[in-house]
């Protein structure tokens, strides 16, 4: 029941909108079946399946709006939910920032549904966990991991002729391997649409190697280091930056994207010239829902940063309508692609005289929104590099660094990989960065 086909979804949406007596109305159907398995101490701890489907209906009278929802789809239920939304709209105060419902949208065609993921069974999940646990036991390390897979759909329609349907699958796996003596820890991840492309055993192998290699870490003095940040380490900082990347807060003078004296920094070269970050729902590596979650505006391919120059900032339709320059509305994206180079992480290491290899970054928080100074820690595999080789494991560091500074100090870029980031999937490269600021040492393994 959780996944409706395009025609099944359209039939329900058409029917519910026909009951509308409001000036305008929109409806959204979403459903998902999510499966998961979690293990720790080389044993499965929890596992489950969650099914849910819901219909949300919005009725509009001028700048008044009301929303009601239901999870039954009989004719009587559909009429009831629309009446309820209309009643609520009439009772609501005007929303001065309300924008009219959109007309027909041309949504990009996105292929993000894989049968192998859609058909996953509890036994397959258990086997995926077992592949990881068996690999751990063979090397005498302790596995803790989590696999989550989902098959889901969303369909939207309104009385102005808008209609869209999107079905997707996803599977995300993360694993932490720790040595029995507690002195080594390694982590690896895999984020895919097609479960057939995922091998929990081989991902686990990477984490096992890092755990074994990271034992007996030495302490280096905190300070500024050349670092090689693997994609998951980069995503922690870049994800945070993009989360705060927004036209309105910039225009209001309260963002790292605000210009001194007023306005935003679109058109300025703020980053190294190799920095190119964009979004594209139809990207084959990270397919994403082709409309904005809030108002269902069609997403297009959009460059955020190109040649180090700020090209665009997400801007709501309301904020665009207030702009003197007739700026375009650009919705918040559903994926992110940072263009990388063609080197493997090994090649980046080979070309490094002295540096620190960082597997991942953790517990990242904003320290100062003005400079976008972030703090966080390295975790699960931090190594000292000398003369092109990993020399020895080192203790984890706390960093205090701004991604704006980091993206100005790029020395080299690795190949982009798919990572799960901030609720969506992203392609992120490994980066070699100079003068990365480590402010203190951590004893954590």
């Amino acid at each position, binding site marked *: 029941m959780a996944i409706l086909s395009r025609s099944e979804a359209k039939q329900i949406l058409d029917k519910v909108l026909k009951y509308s007596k409001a000036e305008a109305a929109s409806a959204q159907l979403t459903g998902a079946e999510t499966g998961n398995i979690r293990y720790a101490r080389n044993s499965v701890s929890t*596992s489950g399946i969650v099914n849910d489907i819901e219909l949300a209906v919005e009725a509009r009278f001028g700048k008044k709006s009301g929303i009601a929802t239901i999870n039954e789809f009989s004719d009587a239920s559909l009429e009831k939910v629309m009446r309820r939304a209309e009643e609520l709209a009439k009772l609501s105060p005007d929303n001065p920032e309300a924008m009219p419902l959109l007309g027909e949208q041309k949504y990009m065609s996105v292929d993000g549904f894989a049968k192998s993921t859609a058909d996953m069974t509890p036994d397959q999940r258990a086997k995926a966990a077992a592949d990881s646990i068996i690999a751990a036991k063979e090397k005498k390390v302790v596995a803790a991991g989590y696999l989550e897979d989902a098959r889901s759909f969303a369909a939207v329609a309104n009385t102005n002729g808008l209609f869209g349907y999107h079905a997707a699958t996803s599977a995300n796996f993360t694993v932490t391997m720790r040595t029995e003596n507690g002195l080594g820890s390694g982590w690896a991840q895999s984020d895919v649409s097609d479960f057939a492309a995922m091998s929990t055993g081989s991902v686990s192998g990477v984490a096992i190697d890092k755990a074994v290699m990271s034992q007996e870490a030495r302490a280096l003095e905190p300070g500024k280091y050349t670092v090689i940040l693997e994609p998951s380490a980069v995503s922690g900082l870049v994800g945070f930056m993009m989360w705060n990347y927004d036209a309105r807060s910039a225009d209001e003078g309260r963002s790292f994207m605000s210009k001194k004296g007023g306005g935003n920094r679109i058109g300025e070269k703020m980053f190294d010239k190799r920095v190119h970050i964009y979004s594209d729902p139809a990207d084959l590596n990270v397919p994403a829902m082709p409309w904005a979650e809030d108002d269902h505006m069609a997403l297009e391919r959009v460059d955020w940063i190109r040649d180090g120059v700020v090209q665009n900032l997400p801007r709501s339709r309301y904020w665009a309508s207030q702009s003197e320059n007739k700026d375009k509305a650009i919705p918040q994206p559903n994926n992110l692609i940072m263009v990388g180079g063609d080197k493997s992480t090994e090649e980046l290491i080979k070309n490094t005289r002295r540096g620190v290899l960082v597997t991942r970054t953790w517990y990242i928080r904003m320290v100062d929104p003005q400079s976008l100074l972030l703090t966080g820690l390295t975790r699960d595999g931090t190594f000292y590099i000398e003369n092109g080789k990993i020399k020895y494991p080192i203790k984890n560091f706390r960093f205090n660094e701004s991604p704006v500074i980091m993206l100005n100090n790029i020395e080299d870029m690795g190949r982009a990989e798919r990572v799960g980031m901030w609720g969506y999937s992203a392609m992120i490269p490994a980066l070699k960065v100079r003068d990365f600021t480590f402010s203190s040492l951590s004893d954590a393994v």
Partner: protein
Amino acid sequence: MDRRKFLKLAGVGAGGIMLPVYGVPVSAAQLAGNGMDVGQKKVLADVVLNTARKAGASYTDVRIGRYLNQYVLTREKNVENIVNTESFGAGIRVIANGTWGFAATNDLTPDGIARAARQAVAVARANAKYQSEPVQLAPVKGVGEVSWQTPIQKNAIQVPISEKVDYLMEVNNSALNAGASFVNSALYLVNEQKYFASSDGSYIDQDVHRLWAPMQVTAVDKKSGAFKTRDGLSTPVGLGYEYLDGREEDKLHGQTTLYKDSYDMVEDAQLAAEQAKAKLSAKSIEPGKYDLVLEPLHLRLTIHESVGHPLELDRVLGYEANFAGTSFATLDKWRSGKFKYGSDKVNFFADRTQPGSLGAVGYDDEGVKAKRWDLVKDGVLVNYQATRDQVHMIDQKESHGCSYADSWSSVQFQRMPNVSLAPGKEKYSVKDMIRDVEKGIYILGRGSYSIDQQRYNFQFGGQLFYEIKNGEIVGQVEDVAYQSNTQEFWNSCSAICDESDYRLGGTFFDGKGQPSQVSAVSHGCATTRFDKINVINTKRKIS
């Protein structure tokens, strides 16, 4: 695709908060409705218990939950959003072949719920093949049919929306009139109507209420391009709308007004605007070692991160290794009976019975009665926080009652109870404490926070910083963060104010687990002093 939606709240909290939103949007009127009758819930619960037993479960619990949220979000003169959500369904947890299985459904017909019960048993059987540690449950005696409710005076969800909007508009005007460039204010109201039944013979009906009234005021200096924010000094509470009464007897007057059991948001908005503007010209801190005087609203976050989390038994044992992390407070340290977590003045206790706290319940989400116990006594580590399937690993026979799930669709697991620092036994005020400091900083409010995955190294900021020289406050400072190591930090604790300064503060969204779940928890403490802590300057320039 995450099944849950997240509401992005720009402007509230550093860099915006990601609010987990459960359930589906509904009308305010629907929130005020009563939902399913308790008798009907018992009938459904019995269907689950019988179905699962027949399918081979040796233990079953079912949680039929109706989770209501109301969020009212405003900025300046506008209401940005009013979100009402309701989520109703059942989560079923079973043990079969010594292994946990879980399934959840929003199909609450007898057939639908029985199907989910069989699914949970099937999941348990599938996983049993790879199980090497069969589940051992500490015994719990069934309590029969009982109920519990958060002791509230005014049900916040039932207060008319117009009244809430008017109040937040008054708050925003107060900030704007005092010179704020921007102000965001909000109300988050939560009501969990939870019905729990287990094969132990318990049928527990609980009605849990929580409220949070956050605010952020921004001052922008257009000329220089600088901006500063000051968050409200309220705290999320396990109280009703009466928390917003702002009673005079709950106010503590000092550098700014602080609040005990009720909050005057209008007054705090004005102070926030004045202080945000003052931040623009405040002195940037000279880095170095300072004695820190930490106000409770600030210190409770340090307690949360450096004491609450490391003493969660699932972290200690490695169950959270892949996400939240493990803990430095290992079993050997606890077994030694000598591990000095802090100085002799430091006593931490866990307590799920504290009135007004976020962690207060009658029973936890596996039917264990709420209680109080010691974690650190006279500076020595004495116990952890555990659930029924964990206590045997620390040679104990009784669960601590720390099980919680954030939704019917989430599986319950070990979550932090209220963890609090006992106040000093001798009479000692904040004034006395400041008078005794030669070179220090008085830090108020929750700022940025980060700690490593074993809870050694941390860095904390704050909302307001005042420099202390020779026993006196000499002015407001900025760009302050302190870094320390948990054990060193708590061993540097040299003084704690007395009970008259003790109060609770909490968090609505403590994240843990995979899939990630949030939980709400409070921490009590009085203003506390820590000697010679490393303070860094956080000012940076981006070109």
